């Protein structure tokens, strides 16, 4: 009886997984096919040729794009971690008038969609002359209300007595933050780091606005470029590009899956 239940449950799960995974699998499969095979509607390539991969690197400067994406994502990740954790620290461990009010004001910015502030942000970046540079691609994202919220929830589970004990011991505020709070909150920080890296990696609209040279573009724009260029009919090459771009995402997710789950649910349970 239990076995039957289990078998049916797993059957459903497997079917769902197949439906979810099919597009990715198909993209992966197409990336090895030549034009004829794609048009023929084949599901699997007849041979594993890497021609498409070689070609995609020749058609667009994918390596530059990858590097740009990687660098901006890394900078944004570090920036967000620093800014969010410092802000969350202030909201939890420092006493000042109107602290909760300021926090809710801060959080309420989550209700304003990023697209709504895009135009003023763009004008600021433009007047600063930061277009086509890492500065313009990264700095507008450093302050992250969600990240501050996530870390604040975790910091609140850290007993105030730890802070008081270090005050009595004469440890400076920053040292306490650096030597106690950050190590104790490692799992939340990793969660937030992965989240912000992926979000930035997948960003499309903003890089499109602030970059217009090949040397400054990021991968998502590169992909779009692949589709709009004349090679668009050659789906094998486009899909090779896609696979290369989603590879880091998948790797990061697989590596950090456990931590990501733990971090995102931690605040909720406590």
């Amino acid at each position, binding site marked *: 009886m239990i076995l039957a239940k289990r078998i049916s449950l797993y059957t459903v799960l497997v079917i769902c997984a197949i439906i979810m995974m099919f597009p990715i699998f198909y993209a992966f499969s197409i990336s090895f096919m030549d034009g004829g095979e794609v048009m023929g509607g084949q599901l699997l390539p007849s041979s594993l040729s890497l021609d498409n991969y070689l070609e995609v690197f020749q058609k667009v400067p994918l390596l530059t794009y990858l590097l740009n994406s990687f660098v901006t994502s890394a900078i944004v990740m570090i920036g967000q971690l620093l800014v969010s954790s410092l802000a969350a620290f202030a909201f939890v461990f420092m006493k000042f008038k109107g602290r909760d009010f300021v926090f809710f004001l801060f959080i309420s910015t989550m209700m304003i969609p990023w697209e709504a502030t895009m135009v003023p942000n763009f004008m600021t970046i433009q007047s600063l002359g930061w277009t086509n540079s890492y500065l313009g691609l990264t700095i507008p994202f450093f302050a992250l209300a969600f990240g501050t919220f996530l870390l604040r929830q975790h910091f609140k589970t850290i007993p105030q007595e730890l802070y*008081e*004990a270090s005050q*009595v011991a*004469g440890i400076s505020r920053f040292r306490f933050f650096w030597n106690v709070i950050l190590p104790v909150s490692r799992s939340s920080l990793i969660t937030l780091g992965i989240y912000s890296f992926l979000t930035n990696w997948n960003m499309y609209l903003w890089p499109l606005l602030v970059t217009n040279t090949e040397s400054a573009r990021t991968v998502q724009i590169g992909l779009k470029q692949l589709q709009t260029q004349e090679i668009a009919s050659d789906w094998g090459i486009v899909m090779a590009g896609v696979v290369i771009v989603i590879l880091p995402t998948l790797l990061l997710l697989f590596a950090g899956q456990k931590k990501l789950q733990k971090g995102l649910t931690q605040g909720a349970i406590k």
Partner: protein
Amino acid sequence: MTHVELAGLKKSYDGKKNVIEQVDLQLQQGEFFVLVGPSGCGKSTILRMIAGLEPITDGELFVNGKRMNDAPPNKRDLSMVFQNYALYPHLNVEQNITFGLHTKKISREEQRRRCLEAAEMLGLADYLRRKPRELSGGQRQRVALARAIVTQAPLCLMDEPLSNLDAKLRTRMRSEIRQIQRKLGITMIYVTHDQTEAMTMADRMMILHEGEAMQIGKPLNIYNHPANTFVASFIGSPAMNVMEADVSPSEIGLSPHCTLPNPMKGNVKAASKNVQVGIRPEHILFSAPEQADAVVEVVNTEVLGTETLITFILDNAKDQWIARWNGQWQFSVGDRIPIRFDLDAIHLFSKDNGRILWAANDGQPNQTAREVLR
């Protein structure tokens, strides 16, 4: 020599209601002072004001004669042990014990030497590499103690350090803390809600009730001479029996069938006041029927082995009295037994404000008994 002095200390969190009302206190060098009172009475608040973790609303704090109201915690030369131990979960025992010592410009070797010494003293030597979560409650408690010891601060504050331990361990740690304090000669301010801890550990203690100091003194003095009904019923276990009584100049009527001579005869003014009678359980005695003050009805007995607690009523079933007798007494519920009140140990309190009006042993503390007991 006076080490710590609180002068008219007050605290208000919201600017309206005072949580601490006017506390005056002088602590001697090397004294073990206990702040005791029910939960929520403001013990932690006082301790945190002394530590500098909470600003002082009014009044003054002196340490070694220097005004310290506005000094940051680390400039006050004290150590503190928290109720939840406040150990850093990501550091091992040794790192926890020495955490922060570097700010006092203590060399690495000296830090290590002090850590080993403290660990040795507290039996932690084998656990120095462990993380706090790999320790038992008692061991964590010791790590917190060790952390206070290695600072070699002359003043140590402890906020209910034993309340997370089981009863047996608590008894052991009580005596251990007391011994360490004596050995190091530090001044201790120890907060607890447990009157047994206060009685057994304190050189002197202060009983606190709703932010007001009820009484300050040596444990036995307070036990024998409670200043009011709150102290009388808070100190001592089981608590002192405090009952309303009808008073006339010559008699105290506890019930229609039980009257005692009014000991305040001489003082006519006080004698006619509304009073409450207080008598400790050990001063209610089993009596021969012909000498009995009353014959009472037993409602419960608890035989503890060396002694027996007898709960009984006179006439009013709502007023339950407790007597404590040595030995093992076996009564059944409903038994009627003759008892006698030890009139030399009776206290009379004002019914209006609870203050002591008269006590049998007033003014002549039993010096010899105290010498023997100490």
